[in-house]
């Protein structure tokens, strides 16, 4: 037992004139094996999500010569390279549409996904000074990284619209699928980025494996070759990769092609499970972040 100094009851608080709520605002307790995502807590920190996103956008192209133009140049250069190597030299068949358009329609969502996963995967480690010094829902860091990527996506999308005009592709009702597809990409990028960011705290190997993983992923996401170009007996494997269905979905939306609803439904279900799974494992790892980061 600790000893007290002068008054015997110095452990008992003196009566206070101020009234306080009946229930504590916050109760801090160790969490058991089951950890849920505290949505109310997340909601009360929504302004911080906005500020963190705003910060990521603000500093992303600081002290660069070309600034926001990089958001456009990245997919445009990729398109040029793909068009030369796969479109011309490789002779990839893309139906009635020129390869450049085919590639760019896939590269815009892909670049968003790849950058979001890379940036959010490193978001926690990059904000170690915040994590050890102040509380906020850690989920906001990878989420803000994905949200900030949306701005780049919008910029690249404007170029894509220009390209559609250039090739005189008429708009169709398929465009209605654009918002759900963007939402699906965001959620899938968030679930991958979130999980990797937490893993990165414990195993810095993630930082080195990530670029490699993204490169391999590009080749199996129907960005370069349409899923119809893949031999029939391997095509089911593409169904396991939501990015393949999402990117094909984007092309269908913009170019007025038929949707592969089976692939999209599977992608949506996988995304849902990925989101729940990664949120859960994020929360499991979260309590050790401040200690091991």
């Amino acid at each position, binding site marked *: 037992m600790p000893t007290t100094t002068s008054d015997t009851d110095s*452990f008992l*608080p003196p009566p206070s004139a101020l009234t306080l709520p009946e229930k*504590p605002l916050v109760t801090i307790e160790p969490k058991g094996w089951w950890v849920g995502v505290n949505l109310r807590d997340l909601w009360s920190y929504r302004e911080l999500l906005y500020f963190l996103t705003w910060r990521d956008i603000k500093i992303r192209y600081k002290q660069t010569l070309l600034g926001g133009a990089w958001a456009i140049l990245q997919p445009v250069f990729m398109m040029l390279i793909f068009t030369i190597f796969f479109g011309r030299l490789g002779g990839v068949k893309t139906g009635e549409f020129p390869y450049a358009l085919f590639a760019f329609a896939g590269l815009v969502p892909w670049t968003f996904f790849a950058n979001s996963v890379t940036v959010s995967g490193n978001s926690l480690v990059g904000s170690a000074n915040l994590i050890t010094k102040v509380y906020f829902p850690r989920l906001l860091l990878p989420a803000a990284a994905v949200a900030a990527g949306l701005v780049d996506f919008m910029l690249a999308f404007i170029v894509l619209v220009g390209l559609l005009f250039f090739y005189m592709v008429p708009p169709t009702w398929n465009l209605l699928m654009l918002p759900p597809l963007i939402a699906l990409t965001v959620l899938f990028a968030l679930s991958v980025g979130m999980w990797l960011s937490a893993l990165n705290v414990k195993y810095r190997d993630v930082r080195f494996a990530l670029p490699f993983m993204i490169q391999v992923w590009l080749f199996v996401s129907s960005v370069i070759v349409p899923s119809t170009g893949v031999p029939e007996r391997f095509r089911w494997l593409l169904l396991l990769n939501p990015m393949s269905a999402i990117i094909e979905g984007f092309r269908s939306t913009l170019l007025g092609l038929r949707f592969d609803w089976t692939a999209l439904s599977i992608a949506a279900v996988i995304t849902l499970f990925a989101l729940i799974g990664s949120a859960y494992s994020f929360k499991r790892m979260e309590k050790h972040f401040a200690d091991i980061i």
Partner: protein
Amino acid sequence: MLGQRGAAYSTLRDTLTTAVRSPLKALRSRQRQDEIIWALEDVSFAVQPGEVLGIIGRNGAGKSTLLKVLSRITEPTRGRIELYGRIGSLLEVGTGFHPELTGRENILLSGAILGMKRLEIKRRFDDIVAFAEVERFIDTPVKFYSSGMYMRLAFAVAAHLEPEILMVDEVLAVGDAVFQKKCLGKMGDVARAGRTVLFVSHNMTAVNQLCPRSLLLENGQVKVMGKTSEVMTQYLKGGAGKGGEWVWKDSRRAPGNHRIRLQAVRIISNGKITSDVDIDKDVSIEVDFWNYAAGIRNLGVNIYLQDGMGTTVLSTANTPNANSLEEDWFDQPHAPGLYRATCTLPGNFLNDAPYYITVYVITLGPLAIEVEAPQVLSFDVFDTGGMREAGGGGGWVGAVRVRLPWRTELLAPLEDLQPVEAGQA
């Protein structure tokens, strides 16, 4: 124990029975029970609204862990904390600052990270800028700020937080004296506005000034809680100074890191370990430390001597430029092992007063603080000799009492001067 409105003991209550495992140990899953170090154990206390509570304790006592658990940065292993209000924690100055952003942008960002709502920040924006005195540079990226400006702006944001509970960790150790005073004033205002402040500091003057009540942590437990003056006496006398020696039996709790760790600090005078020093005699301060790093060089042992008011009387080190002995130790590579650095203060140098020893072990090039042990030991200097009465009754004023060479002589006898005076008249 739970809170109820209106009842006598029921207001703001962070009842806390907490224990947090040492972070590193917690990582290893298969550990024996006796290997676990509890950074905090059975810590339980309540703080009232409007109260400013000082939290003091030696390094490794668990102060920082307590703040981290309270501010939800790490999770307690067991126990419960109830917070009746929003909590804001200030564990460093400049949380969330980004060098590329302007002062204006950083106020918004840092404010949001520290838990302010957007409207709150907007409302207090001008106050923050005025407090930090950076009006002219508000749209300049903070990477171009001087370190003083940066600190002022960072503290200004933090000082304008309006949580019901504010936790502050030693942030006042930064900035010039004028600004420190301003910060202390601000903290007082926060308390007067009816908000609760938990203040962790080694700055005894600041704790004394700000906190009517304090809590002393020792080895992760509450040693004593009560009036600050009494807790402080316990802190300064209690842990340290007993017999003039402090030995860390459990090296894991000793101040230091994986390279250097303290083993013991002791005071030797008149041939024995003691905390009572005769003013005429030399005083040796021994610092025993483990060196775990093979071939480490440029290892500096620093001693700061403070008086009862917290003023540093002197600082000294075993570095060649500060060492009066010709010693060839400092820049040599050192094998792992137990080392002892001894510094001797001459007799008839300190005043008859209590003194507190703070030990740092540093490595140079680049500078790194390996060990920080504030007020680890204290000793009293006693005047037993003839100088006691000679001071004119009230003792000798000053932090030190040095016998200096004095010579007093007759310049000219009175008779010789008289003709001159007469001539002038």
